[in-house]
Structures are given as structure tokens and as C-alpha cells.
């Protein structure tokens, strides 16, 4: 059974569409594009799509992925694959587009298992850029970063410092905030681990400084750590990359 991995983005108004709705959009998009998706067995068969870590509603992204299992006659030769990004993008809503499609090993680990971290560009709204710079330096200098969250009705505390792979802030490009307040917006780049669980951007923000808040968040990458200590994005170096 052939398995495709699709890389797509989500920008503009459609960022307000929830992950659950994105799943439904993909089901319709693949049907419209004539891609024959395999269905699960059972009483209520579902198309066999599997997504990576859900993008929170309201965030933009250049690095969304989904895996699609195809019916035996789902697609034909390699030419079909190279035409897919254009074909699918035409059927997606404005603001969503496919950047790459590749055939992957049907037995490869799922996106949820394989992805080890995500890079986020976070526009931080704050009173002044120095506050953010100070908060970032403080955070990076301490050995632990304790967050409290509720899980199954119980308060648990946890150190997310090991999952904070990197954190950078560029105070030189502070912009007036567009929310009408007299605050400024400072871009911050954070790489947050996803295993054993994905750290969420609001958790990082809360741990940084209660006075700063996320204003506009954009996922720029999802990463898979490889055995040799390197990392790569989830697309194999083949398929449409070559076709281009």
C-alpha cells in the first residue's frame, strides 16, 4: 500500500480553522483531486490520513505534514506525484497550499512518533523589548523551567527546560503592536521538544514572564532527530524535490 507524505502551509484567515476541521478539509480536498485514499476497515470506515502534532487554532505554519495511505490504484506513475502539489493546492482553501509531496516507506514511523521538535516564530507583545530580552536570558541561564498544568483533573508540575532546545530573541526589530495598545512586538524563535510530550507555546510564555504574551505564532519547522545527532525535516530527500 503506497503511503504519501504531504507538506503544506496554513496562513492568513484560515489560521482560525481548527485542526479537526483541517482534517475534514483534507478529506474533501483529496477526493476533489481524485486521489483514491485507502479506508479503514470496520463498521464506520474512515479515510486513512494521519497528521503530525496538531497546530493550535489561530497559529500559522509553513511546516504542516500529513501521511496518506492510498488504494492500490490510488495513483499511477511518478509523474502523478510531481503534479500533486499543484493539483492539491488548487483544491485547498485560500491560505493553504502544498509545498511538497513524497512517497515514503509504508512501515516508517508515524509523524507523531517520528517528530522530535518544532521551531516556532513567536511575536511577543510586551511593554518594551528589553523585558523580553531579560526574560529570555534569565530563562536560558537557569537549569530548570517549572510549569504547572492540569492533567486528568490533577495539578502536576514539570520541568520543561530539557525540552527547550533553543530560544532566541531579536530586539532590534521590535515593531509597534497592531492590537491598538502601546505595546511592542518582538520576534522570538523557539525550538520546543515534542517527546515524551510536546511543549506548548503558551507554557513557554507563562514560564518566561507573566507580563509578556504571544501575539502571533508561526510554526516554521518540524524536526526529526537522526541517529548521527543531526536533524532533518520530515520530507525524504527524493520525490518532488528531484522532480522540481
Amino acid at each position, binding site marked *: 500500500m503506497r503511503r504519501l507524505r504531504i507538506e503544506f502551509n496554513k496562513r*492568513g*484567515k*484560515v489560521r*482560525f*480553522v*481548527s485542526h*479537526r*476541521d483541517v482534517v*475534514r*478539509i483534507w*478529506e*474533501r*480536498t*483529496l*477526493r*476533489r483531486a481524485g486521489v483514491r485514499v485507502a*479506508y479503514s476497515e470496520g*463498521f*464506520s*470506515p474512515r479515510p486513512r490520513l494521519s497528521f503530525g502534532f496538531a497546530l493550535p*487554532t*489561530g497559529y500559522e505554519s509553513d511546516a504542516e505534514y500529513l501521511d496518506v495511505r492510498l488504494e492500490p490504484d490510488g495513483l499511477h506513475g511518478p509523474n502523478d506525484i510531481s503534479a500533486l502539489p499543484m493539483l492539491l493546492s488548487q*483544491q485547498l*482553501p*485560500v*491560505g493553504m497550499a502544498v509545498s511538497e509531496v513524497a512517497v515514503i516507506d509504508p512501515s516508517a514511523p508515524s509523524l507523531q512518533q517520528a517528530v522530535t521538535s518544532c521551531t516556532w516564530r513567536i511575536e511577543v507583545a510586551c511593554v518594551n523589548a528589553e523585558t523580553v530580552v531579560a526574560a529570555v536570558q534569565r530563562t536560558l541561564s537557569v537549569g530548570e523551567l517549572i510549569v504547572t498544568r492540569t492533567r486528568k483533573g490533577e495539578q502536576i508540575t514539570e520541568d520543561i527546560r530539557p525540552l527547550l532546545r533553543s530560544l532566541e530573541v531579536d530586539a532590534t526589530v521590535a515593531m509597534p503592536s*497592531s*492590537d*491598538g495598545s502601546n505595546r511592542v512586538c518582538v520576534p522570538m524563535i523557539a525550538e520546543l521538544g515534542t517527546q515524551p510530550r510536546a511543549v506548548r507555546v503558551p507554557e513557554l510564555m507563562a514560564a518566561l514572564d507573566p507580563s509578556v504574551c504571544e501575539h502571533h505564532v508561526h510554526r516554521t519547522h518540524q524536526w526529526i532527530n537522526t541517529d548521527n545527532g543531526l536533524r532533518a525535516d520530515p520530507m525524504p530527500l527524493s520525490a518532488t524535490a528531484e522532480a522540481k
Partner: protein
Amino acid sequence: MTTCADADPASVWSQLEPLLPRVQKPARYIGCEDGAVSPERHNKQINWLLTYPDTYEIGLPNQGLQILYEILNERLDASAERSYAPWTDLEVLLRREGLPLFSVDTHRKAGDFDVIAFNLSAELTYTNLLNCINLAGVAVRSNQRRDADPLIGVGGHCTYNPEPIADFVDFVVLGDGEEVVGEITELLFDWKAAGKNSGTRSGLLRCMSQIAGVYVPSMYEVAYNGPHIAEITPRYSDVPEIIEKRTVADLAEWPYPKRQLVPLTEVVHDRLSVEVFRGCTRGCRFCQAGMITRPVRERPAEQVRAMISEGLDRTGYDEVALTSLSTADFSGIEQVIADTITDNDRISVALPSLRVDAFTVGMAAQIQRARRTGLTFAPEAGTWRMRQVVNKLISDEDLYGAVESAYSQGWRRMKLYFLTGLPTETDDDTLGIARLARNCVEIGRTYRRSPSVTVSVGGFVPKPFTPFQWFGQNTAAELKRKIQLLRNDLRRAPGVRVKWHDPAATLVEGIASRGDRRLAPVIEYVWKHSGTFQEWSECFNHDLWIEAMEVNGCDVDWYVHRHRKPEETLPWAHLSAGLHKDFLWQDWRDALDELGLEDCRWTPCYDCGACTGYSIEHRVASATPPAGGSQGTGVDLYGAVPVNLQSRPQVRVGL
């Protein structure tokens, strides 16, 4: 052309955008649906804002609104955009930021449109109507509007008695809107071109009242005699005394929606819909939709097939609903279904209104191969006697045959829909619901270990233009007693679940259903005290309605529970759905005598008025009723139950 560009300087998107991360389900405010248009504008054209006064999820699938959206956007002299009631969380933010109601297409301010036209499908949305008008920045009372304000129009089934909201709307459209929206546009065109000059609004409305199917409440005077209406008279000689509904004679000429909107977020009925016919002559006496949409107008089977296949290809949906008031009655139904599912075995066909017989279930088994949900049947009443009263002529055997067929073909759960509080209903009739449910479970046991039947009970609200329009609605206490009776009886019935509609909500629907213009301050009171989204159980506020009635001197008993006399001038006496009052009154007397009435699609005409009055007729491809069951034709195909049928003498009202 899609709509996600924000070049329009009239758009409020840049102010709205920062609010959206703070509200639930923000996707309902972004538009961007497949099928949405970004209308070409020139400053002369008439801009319509088609608004559904409930949430996006409820309003978006509304086919009437989508049909008018396309028809108006195809015109060179008009444009149409859409709006829906913002949920309470966004409303608070909009009011705080001083932002108005907006269109989801280009996020323009509602107040910038020439017409704001609402679809009214349920009485409990009336307070949302006021809220949307107010959020648009327009005075809620029509007599306080300025010349340049948008015209506020309403259409939809509730407008067959628009009197409770008469003071809030400028015009009302009765019946099918396909043709009349164009006629209204043409009239407004000249008025707008001349600059909407001061003092011209009432003259415009007077001209509008002369368009067939358009009712302008301000052109009529209502005189009272004590609590009763003495008469309803036009203020001017050129204003018609009776406003007749509009009826599209041939659905084939209106293959809309051609590009059904595909929302990005989940909505109710999230699937392709193809309307296979309009109107119904089964003659169920409680059913307003069946009475006001006569005659039956079938879409040609060939067109249905084309709309299905093009619609599925374009939208990517895997489900198509064939809509009508009783889809199994469509002449070409079997062939249409066979053609649809041979094309693609992953496609499901939904028949939202399943007839109660084994034949129909066989069809359902064929069409739900891909995804099988529960089956819903609507016997409506628990005993044959009661079903003769309401003219839903299905026998117990029809139901058992349908249920047996469903269990034998693999269904596990079934839902049975009933009304309680029907005219002449006795406790035996109510308990008949329990007997039917128990027997259905019993039938299921021969096929499955633990079959399940859900009994859903709604309180009956008498509606205008039905034979039951004279009937005094049961009190909420009586409805509660009947529901309790049923629950007690079914307490120890394994496999039967009982669900019911809140009798308090039924009461409030009853107030508005047959109310008159004196209810305007009541609706305004409820709206002003934050009584919006009354369709939603978490928002519904019974006590507020009762308080509003008391404060404004309106008697609930008088409006809701009182039997009307035949000589009484009903609040909708100046409106017409074509039905002769004689016919309705005779049908009411027949109901009380437990006499059924045949379906006139397949039997000689009894002249209800819906065809003869407008020189139109049924458009059906088959002159014979479909096979199976007793079919509500009055012909008892099982021979188990004698059906009393009346050949109808002419009887005058009041005799």
C-alpha cells in the same frame, strides 16, 4: 473568485482579527468557504446582506439563503453577501470595540448594505433578529429608521405569521423567494440611483407593497375590539387587501444552489444537499410546511442526477442529502439512488425524512452502505385513532414492518419521533407511544441481543395556515404531565430511551406562533434583557418571557391555550398561502371526526386552493403512488386497519 483578499477599505477585518483568538470557534467568522463570491461592485447596484439570525453552524447550510445568494450575485444590478448572528462571546467584544455586525464574505459593515434580509425558520430566533438589527447600527423599530438606513426584510416559514415582528421589519416576503428578490432589486434600483432622498422611504415601501408576495406591515392598520382583532385594513387604496404567497411553478427552471457553499468548519448538515421536490400533499394536519408549500413540484430526475454528480465532484463531500418534505415520495427515487451509488461506493445518500414502511427501509439499506447512522421514523402519534386525527395515515403494521426490516438489515438503533399535546389526545393515545416503542424493541430482540429505541417527544405548537390553527395549545403543565406519564410507563422498559423537548420552550414558541402585533414590546423586552439565542437550551429563559408578557399586559393563556372561534379574525387574516379558509375549517372538523384525507397527488383534487388559486398544478413524474405500506394514501395495503375516508362536501366556515 474567492474572498480572502482584504483590499476593501470598508472591511472591518483588521479590527476583527485581533478579537478572534479570544472567541470560541473563530472559523465561523472568517468566510472563505468554497463557493463564496467576492461580488463585483459598482455604486448603483443593490447590495443585499442575507442574514441568518442564529450561529454560523446552524445558518450556513440553509438552502433558501444559499439559493438567493447565488441568484442575486448572478444579477448585474445586485450583489449579495452573508451574515450570521455572532455568538455571545464575540458580541461582547464587538460592542466593547464599537464594531458592528459584518458580512463574512468581505467583512463589510452590515449598515453599509441596502437591504438586510433575514431568514426566519423558528420563532425563538426573533430576539436574535432584533439583536442583529441593533448590532448593524439600525433602529430596531421600523418607524424610527432613517431614509438611508438599510431596509430590513424577512422571509422563511415563520413569515406566514409575521405579526409579532411586524413593527421591526420593513418588508416580508411570503413563499418562494427566487423570483421576487429580482423584482425587489429592480424597484430599489431607481430609488437608490435617485439618492435615497429624504422622505422617500415610506413611498418606496408603498410601491414595494404592490409587488406580489411582498407584505409591508406599516401599510396596514390593525383595529382591535377588546382583546380581539376587529379588522386589518390597508392604509392606502393601492395597497392590496390580501397578500398572496409566491410560488415557483417549475423547479426545473431553478437548479440552485449551483455552487453549494462548502464551509471550512463543521456545520449541521455538513454534506451536499439536493432539493428533489418542494411542497407536500400528504396532508398531515399539524404540519405547517406541508400546508404552506403546496403544490408538489418535483425536480426532473435528470436534473437531480446532474446536481448530485456535479455537486459531489466540486465539493468533495462523501454524502448527499436528497431533501424535501418526504423524499421517498419522489417519483424517480429508486433510479436516482441506484445511479448515485454505482458511481462511487464511498458515497452515502441521506434521506432526511424517511417514510415509515419496510420498502423505504430497504432503500435505506441500499444507500447507507458506506456509513450507517441510526434510522429515524416519525409516526407522530401513538395510536391509529390519533394518527387519523392528524392525518398521518400509517398503521401500526407499517411501523412494525419498517422496524423489522431495519433490524433484519443490521441497524442497531432507531429513533421514533412523536408529538404530544395533539387535538383530542387522551392518556391512552399518549401511552400508545409507549406501547409502540415496547413492541419495536420486542421485534428487535428476534434479531439482536439488546436492541435500542429512542422515543423523542415534542410538544405540539399549533401553526397558522394549518387545520389546527384554531386549536388551544396544551399548557406546559399538561405537556409535562403527559411526558411524565410516558416516562413512568417506560421506566422498566429495557432498550427504550425517552427524550423530550422542553415544554417551557414549546410554550414560548406558542406565544409567537399565533401572536399579533401587540407582542412587539414583549419581544423587545426579552431582547433588551439579554434574551438572545433562545433556541439554545443553555440560553433559553422561560421566566424572562413570562415576565415580559406580564409587564406588557399580554395574557399567556389568551395567546397560547385558548381555542379560537371560526368567526375570529386571526392575526394573519390578510395573508394567504392559497389555502381556502373553508378547506382548513372542514379539515379541522374532519380531524375531530377522525376522518382521513387522501393525498391529492394521486387522487382527484379537493380544491384546497393552493393550485386553483394560482393557476398552477402538481408537477410529478408519476401519477401513481409508490409501492409498499399504506403510504398515507388512505389505501390500506395490509388490510389490517379500516381507514375512514371522507369524500368532501363543501362546508362553509362557521356552520
